[in-house]
């Protein structure tokens, strides 16, 4: 069982290391997502929880993409965790990724036990989306609600590792 988990973890990490294409959206449960969320190292991660049905999420997506363009060649990684249902992966999520030219990693979180995992992401999160987490090994930021290009740019510029 332990070996199986390790293989799974290596597989997931491997997928990320290899850089998945935007059209390849892994569908994970929270136990599978958690190691990705808790991966605090030299890289500055922007992790945004969103959904195609969430208006403020859709509205801030162009700003997130501008940020990704600006920082993606540095020690930086953007992960977009979709709250869309798995049945909407092909009909809503992937068309949205294509329309918006999203080149950050997209994961679809398929785990109905929201009351169990919301607190594990952040205890201050009430459950409304969007949320944005920015972190590296020395820095942590959490926001529930919309975030702008200027705010992201300032936070990342100040805290990104050389």
């Amino acid at each position, binding site marked *: 069982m332990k070996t199986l988990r390790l293989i799974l973890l290596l597989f997931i990490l491997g997928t990320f290391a290899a850089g998945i294409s935007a059209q390849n959206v892994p569908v994970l449960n929270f136990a599978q997502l958690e190691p990705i969320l808790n991966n605090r190292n030299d890289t500055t991660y922007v992790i945004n929880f969103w959904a195609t049905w969430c208006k403020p999420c859709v509205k801030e997506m162009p700003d997130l993409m501008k940020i990704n363009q600006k920082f993606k060649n540095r020690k930086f990684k953007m992960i977009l965790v979709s709250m869309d249902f798995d049945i909407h992966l092909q009909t809503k999520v992937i068309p949205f990724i294509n329309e918006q030219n999203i080149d950050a990693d997209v994961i679809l979180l398929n785990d109905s036990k929201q*009351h169990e995992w919301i607190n594990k992401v952040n205890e201050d999160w009430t459950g409304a989306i969007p949320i944005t987490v920015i972190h590296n090994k020395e820095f942590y930021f959490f926001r529930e609600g919309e975030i702008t290009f200027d705010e992201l740019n300032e936070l990342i510029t100040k805290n990104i590792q050389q």
Partner: protein
Amino acid sequence: MKRSFLVLILSILSFSFIYADGYKVGDKATDFSLKNVDGTMVRMNDFEDARGIVVIFTCNHCPYSVLYEDRIIALDKKYKEKGFPVLAISPNDPVKQPEDSYENMIIRAEEKGFTFPYLWDEGQRITKVYGASRTPHVFLLEKVDSEYFVRYIGAIDDNSKSPADVEEKFVENAINALLANEKPDPDFTKAIGCTIKWAE
């Protein structure tokens, strides 16, 4: 640069202000007078025979609210006669979210045959006082003498996507506990939902 930092600080402060407000389990809940889809004004104190009220912040546009519409109707039908009617409140600013306008609330209530009042929180004051942060968001109130106290805050059940796969019916369990003179456990849960669309 300095200015954008100031804006950042101010926006963080305003966010903490919004989210720090609101009721916790045990707090006394204020009454309100809000306009129902039938044009009448509804107050909690209108429910003279109630043992409590299931206040649910919900709206037309949010897919998670829509997923719960039938379950909210069922909840009202099942618990109204036991003394716990549902009172739904639409919290969003209709300028920011036109689908949630009062006119559209009337249409949706008719389409779905809501069995409970569907109230418009014009000006969003009650939403702020309660501290609702998403839709749907439940505040289960118990009446003690003529006052209402918050006994449970959170989700309706543990599976938004699929009613058939629900394992824990949080609100029903909480009402059943109150009917048995017990404390709801859990008395606070979280769920994914849509943000409240505040007026700018």
